[in-house]
């Protein structure tokens, strides 16, 4: 268990490299989550409360896109950002920004589909009242998001989980470049391919701990807010 000791040493000594990688992981995932939430939560809500022809198809596609393979997302973003691609002039390939873009594409359908379901349930309850009060459009969307905020955190955490655990897409568009785009998952993949399985597992444990902390923070805030409200 040499590698385990090694991993422990890295953590205990606050190894700069490890922390750089951890920090990049969390930064990329949180930014992607924030961007995605701004898109997907209103989208999911809008789909839950509006009726238009083709709505079912959109929901179906959104659900199916939850099963979009990360590698495919990675490839699409890669082709887009590649220097010979349409957005190549921006020089974003192999940067954290590219990884954020890929993750946004990946988790937006997930949060949208899940939040659609949550809001649909609330909508069954609120629909008549909102109709009666003439609450529509943006006001309705905001009201649903506010009132469903506790249930929505789980959707958001699911998106965060997918983002932070994701490797297939970020390795393609980020390139796993040391000190630039290496994140925890790509580092784990690298150690695995080097056969350093125990170190890889230890890094995985570190990542899970991180994920646990973020979840604890979010759920803690939710509980605190819920308690304050219904004390």
């Amino acid at each position, binding site marked *: 268990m040499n590698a385990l000791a090694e991993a422990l040493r890295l953590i205990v000594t606050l190894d700069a490299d490890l922390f750089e990688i951890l920090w990049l992981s969390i930064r990329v995932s949180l930014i992607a989550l924030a961007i995605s939430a701004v898109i997907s939560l209103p989208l999911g809500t809008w789909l839950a409360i509006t009726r238009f022809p083709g709505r079912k198809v959109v929901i179906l596609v959104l659900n199916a896109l939850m099963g979009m393979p990360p590698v495919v997302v990675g490839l699409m973003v890669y082709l887009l950002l590649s220097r010979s691609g349409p957005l190549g002039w921006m020089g974003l390939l192999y940067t954290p920004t590219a990884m954020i873009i890929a993750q946004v594409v990946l988790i937006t359908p997930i949060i949208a589909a899940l939040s659609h379901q949550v809001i649909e349930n609330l909508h069954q309850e*609120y629909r008549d009242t909102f109709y009666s009060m003439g609450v529509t459009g943006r006001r309705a969307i905001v*009201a649903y998001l506010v009132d469903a905020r506790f249930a929505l955190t789980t959707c958001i955490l699911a998106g965060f989980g997918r983002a932070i655990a994701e490797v297939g897409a970020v390795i393609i568009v980020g390139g796993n470049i040391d000190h630039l785009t290496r994140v925890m998952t790509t580092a784990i993949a690298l150690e695995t391919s080097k056969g350093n399985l125990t170190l890889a597992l230890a890094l995985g444990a570190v990542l899970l701990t991180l994920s646990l902390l973020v979840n604890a923070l979010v759920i803690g805030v939710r509980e605190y807010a819920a308690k304050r409200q*219904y004390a």
Partner: protein
Amino acid sequence: MPDSLLPIRIRNLRLIKGDRAVLDGVNLTIEELGITVIMGSNGAGKTLLLRCLHGLIEPDQGQITLGNLTVADSRDQQAMVFQHPVLLRRTVLQNLAFAVPDIAKADPQQLLAALDSVHLADRANQPARMLSGGEQQRLALARALLSKPALLLLDEATASLDPASVLLIESLVKAQSKRGTKVILISHDQGQGRRLADEVVFMSGGQVAEQSPADQFFTEPRTPVAEAYLAGKILF
């Protein structure tokens, strides 16, 4: 005061659910201001009729006009209190503010006054869903009155209120009616009918069985069903 939505004309309204006609050709004209009370057995179609009038249900057949407006066009001059009011997961005051954002911005004092009128001022900052059954209904009524509707629809709005609250609500409704709001109210409470109604619409089996001035309805109803209903005779 908003435009009058009178006369309200309902022509041959039919609504099919499954294989039952739950509204089975409703014809009704309401010409006058004042308070119209709808009575009738459970399942007679009272709630469904009110929901059609409010635009919550699209009937399968028939038309409704309010003044020279359609249901859709008149919606923002209507307000409704539901049989089981739904309150937002917010405080009592926020529930009011959400319903009338303009007033909440321009004159927040008015919200507190409205709360006070239903004796809930001291509950302003409690979560609305923790109110007792009767308190929730009073809040829902305050919410509906704040929008100063031309047409106010009440679905058993006093069903779980204590006697004092019933009288309070009735006085608020009467006052609103005096100010020119047309009120249509569903109730099973004959006492309330006698106290409030200018006219009574009696429904039975998805149809309007009788429409009479209140004095006449309670003393000598024209239809046997209404007579049996008032006597509390079983007629399922």
